[in-house]
């Protein structure tokens, strides 16, 4: 395995980690208005992600940093090409982060309502934007010979990307609902389970449409043939198994299955791309690959040592944190948010 492939894999891992971990944070934010009937209940929902969401968000920052370091051309093309969507993403993350921190600082109803709205929008927009981005990365954008994306904002909005956006949003909502079934009890847990069943059904429908559209819009099937490969099939099986686990009240398993769905789907997308990192719709030769977009071997080498040292430590304390705060929450607990 070359260092270029290794860094491609590491970035895939960072993005996958971000989607799995922030996925349930976003899901909780999306479902808060539905699952949390009262102010106290919504507080409980926000506190369920309290000790985690900030650390989860760092996966995105680390992914961005790793992309900048290992594939600066990819970073430059993607971030300048997807200018307005990324602006909206930052605004959404600002709204959600500040919303979570500030919401419970004042008791006034209008204050809390306003932040509830901010948290909802800040949770629903990121999956939509990532869905649009991922679909367009797979479909290809007009990248010229100088590696610049010369497309327009409206070029990013098409049937394929919209379906991907909705599917991802629904998938995160399901994932978040299942996270809540693990962190809550009683009435709220029942409501979360119900929400997971509903959003799970719609997720399956939209994911299916997305897979069918991929046949026409992306190169995934031309690359793999009609059988999309084991990993894609595993993604499908994981998703389909979710309702059975929910019905059996095996919430932990159900949550694990949405996690697997996210992991396997993300990997499928990147396998489709490999060794390209962005597809040019103008000329296949102008696509960015893990070779022409990469830093020089020395940089990759240094970065590899740093990453291989730090990542086990990060995983260690992250797992420790999740273990420390594994308990279910109740309305009598300490609430920070």
């Amino acid at each position: 395995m070359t260092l270029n492939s290794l860094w491609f894999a590491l970035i895939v891992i960072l993005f996958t980690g971000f989607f799995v971990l922030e996925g349930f944070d976003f899901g909780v934010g999306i479902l808060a208005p539905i699952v949390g009937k009262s102010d106290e209940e919504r507080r409980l929902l926000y506190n369920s992600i309290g000790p985690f969401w900030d650390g989860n968000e760092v996966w995105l920052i680390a992914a961005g940093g790793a992309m900048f370091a290992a594939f600066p051309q990819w970073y430059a093309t993607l971030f300048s090409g997807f200018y307005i969507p990324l602006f909206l993403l930052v605004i959404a993350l600002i709204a959600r982060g500040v919303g979570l921190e500030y919401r419970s600082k004042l008791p006034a109803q209008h204050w809390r309502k306003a932040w509830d709205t901010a948290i909802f929008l800040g949770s629903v927009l990121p999956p939509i934007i990532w869905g649009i981005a991922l679909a367009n990365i797979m479909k290809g954008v007009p990248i010229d010979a100088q590696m610049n994306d010369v497309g327009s904002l409206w070029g990013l909005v098409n049937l394929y990307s919209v379906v991907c956006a909705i599917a991802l949003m629904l998938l995160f909502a399901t994932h978040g609902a299942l996270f809540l079934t693990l962190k809550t009890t009683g009435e709220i847990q029942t409501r979360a389970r119900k929400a997971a069943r509903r959003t799970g059904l719609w997720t399956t429908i939209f994911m299916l449409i997305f897979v069918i559209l991929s046949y026409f819009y992306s190169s995934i099937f031309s690359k793999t043939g009609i059988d999309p490969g084991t990993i894609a099939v595993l993604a499908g099986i994981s998703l389909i198994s979710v309702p059975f686990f929910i019905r059996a009240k095996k919430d932990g398993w159900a949550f694990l299955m949405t996690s697997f769905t996210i992991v396997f789907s993300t990997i499928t997308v990147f396998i489709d791309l490999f060794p390209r990192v962005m597809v040019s719709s103008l000329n296949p030769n102008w696509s960015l690959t893990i070779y022409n977009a990469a830093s020089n071997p020395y940089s990759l080498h240094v970065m590899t040592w740093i990453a291989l040292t730090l990542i086990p430590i990060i995983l260690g304390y992250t797992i420790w944190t999740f273990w420390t705060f594994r308990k279910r929450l109740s309305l009598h607990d300490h609430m920070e948010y």
Partner: protein
Amino acid sequence: MAVDLARWQFGVTTVYHFLFVPLTIGLGFLIAILESIYVAKNDEKYKKMAQFWMKFFLINLAIAVVTGIFQEFQFGMNWSTYSRFVGDVFGPSLAVEGLAAFFLESTFLGVWLFGWERLPKKVHLASIWLVSLGSTLSAFWILTANAFMQEPMGYAIHDGRAEMTSFGAILTNPQLWVEFPHVFFGAIATGSFFMVGISAWYLLRKRSIDLFQPSFRIATVVALISSILTAVVGHEQAQHEVVAQPMKMAAAEALWNTSPLHAPETLIAGIDAAGHHNTFAIKIPYLLSILSYNRLSGRVQGINQLQQQFVQKYGPGNYIPNVYISFWTFRIMVGAGSLMVLLSLIGLVLFLRDRELKHGWFLKSMLAAIALPYIANTAGWIFTEMGRQPWIVYGLLQTRDAVSPTVSNANVLFTLVGFAFVYIVLLTIGVYLAARAVRQGPDDENEREDGIPSNLLLEPSGGSAS
């Protein structure tokens, strides 16, 4: 045009972000000290203090974190040519910042906040020190990236891009080792002036003196040490720039022509940038030589001579930064810093004589002095970044050549206005919440009336699971 808008965007968002970063570093460090005293002495008072100051840390950090995301994104969004050019060298520092610093800071902040009742005291204490370490490391890695822009090291130009050749050289860049201590001690000073100032407000009103006198005293000592160290390192940094970035320092002095052998320091001057001269100047003999070289003699190169040298070296062009801004931001920074040293020295004298409660005027000045580090930090960054112009990477790439070629003016303007609007709203809310937290104070009665469970702030003693 696009380059102007992108520069405004970078300037506005970076200065704004850096209003919140120093307090995160400084206050986090002080809270860690307070909790250490709590664990060592087992005195609940210090726990209550740590929890009180944490309120401000959190209000501040919320904005620091969310605005930091855009800092990472905007290199790619607005400055894609720059990102392609230096990605090899600049990217790794940002990546390590994420991996080594942000994960640490945000994970252990969660542990600290939610861990009072779940963790043994010492583990809980370790978590705040790790938060403090994380925010400091974050500053270190971002300054590693910045030091490369100020004084490129450890690279070779290959195929029109800067490629890293020595990570060791990047980490041992002399620029980094004057810049990082200056920023770090400045941040500690920011946190301690904040703590001194807010404590002074309570002391003036004779509220909770048992909590705010110790806060006032601890923070005064830290304020004095850190502001002196900031000044000392700042002096070393200036001496380094005289060699590394002579044009920046010539602009800081509005020194149009190379000085005589015994160079006088210009205290204030009327600057006519178009005519390349000063309309008037008040000078102190020998001082510039002393400041530049620690000697009574030594010439300092002037703007006009440097401009000629640069034209020979880099080709035709204007290599003079905005002299007016460089000159005044430098003076504002040094002036505010000197006032900080003076005020914290008075504070220490009063504290040692046990008289700080008797001097209302002094307490009032310290409340107002909360603004000083913010003024110094902002002026310092504007000076160091604008004094480097027209270069984005000193001697290698000019700012005007670094922008994203495909991003339209309309888009940059749109996001500039968007961020400015959101940031103003955030600042208003943050200041409002901080002011409200001050009024409420460390006692929980008000909060209970508000219906906010206050178990974070006051819990039965023995609440921690030690």
